[in-house]
């Protein structure tokens, strides 16, 4: 539908396209160009380096291992919780998504306290078995996959559960009526219908694991992966090599995304939801015992990291050495966060930088989503692609791109010195937030009847009034949800931050790492708890804003006929 002449598309589209090309595409081009700066020298060095070859294979092994582990946990759990009813099901359902609420580095820290060489669980087992040394060293590829499984199974669980809720239960009944047994029903009906959800979530895990940085960084031991290797090369001054590694990592991720899109197109069913998913109540004594036990174990495993971080946040720094649990507890850690200006600073930085980034996300992504959903103009497809790219590119690669582009002052080519200034991190957070906010707003706008815009214009509303009174209210749920996700991501961001931070603008996550290095576990945990609380606060604010607006718009709804 061509409505080009009715409303301004290009005057809006041109600046938004320019900003996104500058922030999203340009840095990647700088990295690729940088990798060829001396012809193929850096690429040859990359190909010849055994470390890099190991890093590449470790990255792929970890990504595949994470997919298997996360699917192995998430898939059965999704079936268990949507198909069966047993004591503890509701608690387990509520807790199952908890790992997603842990900021990336905080999860890793919690695992260190629990399962690390001197972790609580490790020591309990060591004591119980009377061993000389720890029963395991929590390092290397298995440790990394273990952490990934904990944080990433949530993707599989959520997507498959949603898929299962949508599967029409009458299909199941129809298959049974035609004489198919439980096994055949699963193989021929349920699993094929779930294929898009399973494939989608597996690729999500694959991509996340591919770009993962925190777990390999902390638990890697001698194992290097591409993302950590990139940082090491950069810190060692091998910038050219870092660019090659970044290019390889980004290309692997883009290949993953292309595969994902292709699978999505190939297999997608619209399954109408008729009749709620019915749950089978577990009745046999053995079944009830097994289900109950499983629920208790899983809830414990899921909650332990949170509890552990909270516990350690009250431990006096330096006092916890060889005991199983910290021996002394104090409120000092929290008191110092508020009073010590050096400790207060990262908190201020994170909040301020997240605010700047999210404000930019709201404006740019709203306009982009509006153009994508409601306008047709040359360049619409390009815009769609631009807002999706940051989702596919690992944060380390985004950060290296920014470092490669904004380290010189050359306004003619659109380059400014941002590295080392306040602005570099908000820019990185902004880029990471683009797909989150844009996708959310797009889906809100897609639910709107496009005729609504015509209706407003036909009633005499100006373009601006239409946007203000009709489009923004329609986009609001997406704006709030997207902004919330972007804020949560930005406030706890670690991966891009650790590449780009300076002492003055270091965020909370980088400070947590510094405190860990200094063995100030209590302080590190206190920062972690604060981060969890910030995340929680953002969610609460988002919900409050949402309800306030919904109520404010319609006023009190009086009784009919009043």
């Amino acid at each position: 539908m061509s409505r080009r002449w009715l409303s301004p598309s290009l005057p809006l589209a041109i600046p938004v396209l320019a900003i996104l090309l500058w922030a999203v595409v340009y840095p990647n081009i700088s990295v690729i160009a940088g990798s060829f700066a001396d012809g193929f020298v850096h690429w040859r060095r990359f190909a010849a380096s055994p470390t890099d070859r190991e890093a590449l294979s470790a990255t792929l092994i970890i990504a595949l291992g994470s997919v298997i582990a996360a699917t192995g946990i998430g898939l059965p759990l999704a079936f268990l919780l949507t198909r069966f009813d047993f004591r503890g099901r509701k608690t387990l359902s509520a807790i199952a998504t908890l790992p997603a609420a842990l900021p990336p580095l905080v999860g890793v820290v919690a695992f260190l306290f629990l399962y690390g060489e001197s972790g609580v669980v490790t020591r309990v087992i060591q004591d119980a078995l009377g061993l000389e040394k720890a029963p395991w060293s929590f390092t290397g590829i298995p440790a990394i996959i273990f952490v990934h499984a904990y944080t990433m199974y949530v993707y599989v669980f959520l997507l498959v559960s949603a898929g299962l809720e949508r599967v029409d239960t009458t299909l199941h009944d129809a298959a049974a009526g035609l004489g198919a047994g439980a096994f055949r029903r699963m193989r021929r009906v349920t699993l094929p219908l779930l294929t898009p959800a399973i494939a989608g979530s597996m690729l999500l895990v694959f991509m996340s694991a591919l770009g993962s940085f925190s777990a390999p960084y902390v638990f890697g031991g001698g194992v290097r992966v591409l993302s950590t290797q990139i940082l090491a090369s950069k810190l060692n001054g091998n910038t050219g090599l870092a660019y090659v590694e970044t290019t390889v990592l980004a290309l692997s991720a883009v290949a993953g995304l292309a595969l994902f899109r292709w699978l999505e197109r190939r297999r997608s069913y619209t399954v109408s939801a008729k009749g709620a998913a019915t749950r089978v109540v577990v009745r046999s004594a053995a079944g009830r015992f097994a289900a109950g036990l499983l629920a208790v174990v899983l809830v414990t495993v899921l909650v332990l990291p949170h509890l552990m971080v909270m516990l350690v946040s009250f431990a006096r720094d330096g006092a916890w050495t060889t005991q199983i649990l910290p021996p002394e507890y104090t409120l000092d850690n929290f008191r110092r966060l508020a009073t010590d200006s050096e400790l207060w600073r990262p908190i201020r930085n994170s909040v301020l930088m997240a605010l700047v980034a999210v404000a930019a996300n709201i404006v740019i992504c709203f306009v982009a989503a509006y153009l994508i959903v409601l306008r047709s103009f040359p360049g619409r497809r390009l815009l769609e692609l631009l807002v999706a790219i940051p989702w596919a590119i690992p944060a380390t690669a985004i950060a290296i791109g920014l470092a490669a582009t904004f380290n010189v002052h050359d306004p003619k080519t659109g380059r400014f010195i941002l590295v080392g200034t306040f602005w570099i991190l908000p820019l990185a957070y902004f880029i990471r937030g683009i797909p989150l906010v844009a996708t959310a707003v797009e889906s809100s706008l897609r639910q709107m009847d496009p005729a609504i815009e015509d209706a407003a214009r036909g009633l005499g509303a100006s373009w601006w009034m239409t946007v203000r009174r009709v489009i923004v209210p329609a986009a609001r749920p997406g704006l709030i949800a997207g902004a919330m996700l972007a804020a949560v991501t930005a406030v706890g961001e670690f991966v891009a931050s650790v590449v780009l931070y300076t002492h003055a603008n270091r965020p909370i996550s980088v400070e947590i790492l510094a405190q860990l290095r200094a063995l100030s576990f209590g302080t590190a945990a206190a920062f972690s708890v604060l981060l969890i609380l910030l995340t929680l606060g953002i969610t609460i604010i988002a919900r409050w804003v949402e309800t306030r607006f919904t109520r404010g718009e319609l006023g009190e709804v009086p009784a009919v006929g009043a």
Partner: protein
Amino acid sequence: MTAGTLALHGISRRFGEHAAVEDVSFEVAPGELLALIGASGSGKTTTLRMIAGHERPDAGKVTLDGTDITAFSPQKRGFGMVFQHYALFPHLSVEDNVAFGLEARGVNRSVRRERAQRVLSTVGLERVGPRPIQSLSGGEQQRVALARALVIEPRVLLLDEPLSNLDPTLRRSMRDELRSMLRTLHVTAVFVTHDQDDAFAIADRVALMRHGRILQVGSPETLYAKPASRDVADFIGRATLVDAVDADTHAIITIGGVARKVGAVKASTSPPFRKAFAVLRPEALGLVDSKTPGAWQGIIVGRRFAGSGFVYRVALTEDLAVDVASATGTVGEADSVGVIVEREPVALVPA
């Protein structure tokens, strides 16, 4: 409300290679209700959108009381429009929806309220003003959409499939209500529908579209009794088209070797068609005893109860069957019957 005279002068609209609307012209007099009907994809909605200004014609012009408004944006035209799915603003109350057009015109709040209230009571919804849109039934939403379009006192009111979202019972009562409301308000209105019952019940005149072109414009009776072409006769009502010889005021129809001479009419005076079809409507035909001299011989192959009577399907030859209406249901399937033309004249269309 001052109703305007709306006219389309040869407007066309292409989407790439596809000509959605081609050379469409018609005029709507002040206070007249015109229905644009046609199958889906016939270009009727695109035509309506061009009248509203949501779509710009590639050629031709739209005039209102003689003024060329082709280049006017929708908000400048000030036409009221009722959308197929109503396009009500989900976040606004009923009253705010209705008052939106006044808000856009800078009318102050108290006047807005008062006028919205007044229009809501014309559509029979005086008590729902403060309620959220979602709490209304489909029929009520339809009336809110109408009220929202009427509050700006439009010189032309446009309605896109206004009844298609309602269930059949509600649809019939809304049909009559809509007609009487539009009559009372004396508003010039164009509405799009694919349902000829809706069009016949509401409109003063009907414009039938097919493949982006207007086939015929006229009163419902005209389109029914004097279709201008085969396509019109096919689309409007039930009819069987049979070969006929055009003898000006008469037609000679030969079926199964039996020739009958019947009175005939055409949509316009023209030299005799070289090849013609006679439009045989079920109620123009009658069943007689099979031995009646001069009747076409046939066998009943189908029988359907239609409330006021029966409709028989009669096979006259191997590849020709006609529908015949009958008040009684005394004959049964496989019976031999004679068929005659009871009501003359029948319409002739060029083959």
